[in-house]
């Protein structure tokens, strides 16, 4: 099989981390009464956990090789908070694609590709799957748009070789606790699985300092018209969000904890799940 050898790793790595701001997955989320989406009043917005892990890997990679981390986010004004946090954690640059983010990850990838093409990058890192929509497609769509290789579910990033011939060795998670080791040529898109390294926490001092770091801002609408040159793809639109109907069989045991617990034990024995007492 003919294939190009991976190129040398540059002395100065230019890494872009794509971050998504999501409703705090640990908070209670409520639907709007018309069923068209989430109620946004009172929602706490946080950086997606997978993307925080991606930022952590980007910072570690650049510390190893030398270079620069640029944090990139797309979304309305509030998403700037995600960038300030990234700056406080050590990103050197921040880029905000400001506007309403499309639902379809293929469209999001078009927008990201449109902006990433304006500069030279060595690696683009992002989370494998966001906690809100969780399509898991942004990385592969982006890589396809840029014509780069990509790896999804990355659980290990290592550089190998010397400064003249260095590549990335990537460990990726498969199912059933199997792992795949591969060698990737740059530039590439890496989609990081959670749990690789615990993401660092920003210090208050750095958060305050980040407020003074300029954020480069581009209007999403301008990019949308730019990226319309791409081949036309069908529009995927959200019609409604709903709570799933309860499935059959589920029985809620009420009362105070002691009553509920006794009821549970009685039922488990009745059902033959736990042995009868002798």
């Amino acid at each position, binding site marked *: 099989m003919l294939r190009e050898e991976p190129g040398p790793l540059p002395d100065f790595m230019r890494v872009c981390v794509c971050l998504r701001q999501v409703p705090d*997955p640990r908070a209670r989320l409520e639907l709007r009464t018309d069923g068209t989406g989430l109620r946004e009043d009172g929602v706490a917005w946080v950086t997606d956990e997978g993307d925080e892990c991606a930022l952590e890997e980007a910072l570690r990679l650049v510390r190893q090789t030398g270079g620069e981390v640029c944090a990139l986010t797309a979304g309305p004004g509030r998403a700037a908070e995600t960038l300030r946090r990234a700056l406080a954690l050590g990103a050197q640059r921040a880029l905000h694609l400001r506007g309403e983010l499309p639902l379809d990850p293929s469209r999001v990838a078009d927008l990201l590709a449109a902006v990433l093409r304006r500069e030279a990058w060595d690696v683009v890192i992002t989370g494998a799957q966001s906690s809100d929509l969780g399509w898991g497609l942004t990385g592969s769509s982006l890589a396809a748009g840029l014509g780069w290789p990509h790896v999804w579910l990355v659980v290990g990033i290592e550089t190998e070789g010397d400064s003249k011939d260095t590549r990335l060795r990537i460990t990726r998670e498969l199912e059933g606790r199997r792992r795949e080791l591969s060698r990737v040529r740059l530039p590439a898109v890496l989609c990081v699985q959670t749990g690789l390294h615990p993401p660092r926490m920003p210090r208050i001092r750095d958060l305050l300092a980040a407020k003074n770091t300029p954020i480069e801002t581009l209007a999403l609408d301008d990019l949308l018209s730019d990226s319309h040159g791409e081949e036309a793809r069908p529009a995927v639109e959200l019609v409604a969000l709903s709570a799933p109907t309860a499935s059959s069989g589920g029985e809620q045991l009420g009362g105070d904890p002691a009553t509920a617990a006794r009821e549970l034990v009685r039922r488990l024995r009745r059902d033959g799940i736990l042995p009868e007492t002798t």
Partner: protein
Amino acid sequence: MSGKSWAVWLAPDVEVSATAASRMMASLRMAQSAAAVRGGNVEVVLAEAPRPDGTRHPTRVPAWAKECLGDSVVSRFSRLEHPLLALRTPGATATVLAAAVEHTDGVHTLCLGHDYEAVDLCGLLGRRLGAAAITAVNEIRGGAGDLRVIRPVHGGRFLAELRVPGDAMLVLTVPRSVAASSRQPAQIADENRCEVETLEVEASLFRSLPDREVLAIEESGSPPELATAERIVAVGRGLGGPEHLGLARQLATALGAEIAGSRPVVDSGWLPADRQVGSSGQTVNPTLYVALGISGAAQHLEGMSGSRCVVAINRDPEAPIFRSARYGIVGDLHAVVPALIAALVEDQGEPT
């Protein structure tokens, strides 16, 4: 709309596990739904690398595939063979599948069983074929002009109804729960009922494809203890912190259960990786599965859906785990679990 609705099956390296088989059945169910909604025939495309000795696969339905087909009505079973499929990288596989779609008239839907390979293919094929790419699809409905696709969002807490133009090509990944919720196949397919062919396509990497080179696949060394456990107490992030693991262990001891956890718990280092249940961890089939503070994300449910009886204890009444549970207790697990331990002990102590 007439045309073809494809269930695409990727031939596994070794044997076909029960999990892989249920994913293939799920993709077939969805291909059938798509044909019902959009018209046309259902076809299965089995994509595989050539045999190591270079001989061709015979033009017939393999025995394992007959079991997956069951009594489904399929108009054609195609064996798509190409050397690029041996690379097992998404770029190479997508190149071959895209060539197969372009080679065939009227394919309107491609359904892949949802797994780590299929999600990558979905994104790449969507772009190459100018198709709408949608992962983890539960349902497709509507008519030719007004197509609706349903998928879970926010960790399974809500379902999103998506509108797609009626004439769009769709590339979907389908979780195996779609097969489990439908009728199980009652019989093994009679291959005389469908046309069987070998599908040959021209595809090469030279056109556009920068890919990666797979060096090795590593199996995890430790034995899957959880896989054979009769009872499991599993903890999620709702436990609050590793300092509360003692409480979960007390319950496990009282029940004679193994302790396990969800991915966030393992990621946070509360439990070692060999204790993780879910699609990226272990698949378990216990008689009793007690989920403490686990919300029930799809990846977790994938690993525990074989449990006979699921008990969920969670503070959030809307946690998706309750929909998979036979019994649920809404409440603070720090109050409920001690009460449960007391009830088990008290029950042991009092002769009936």
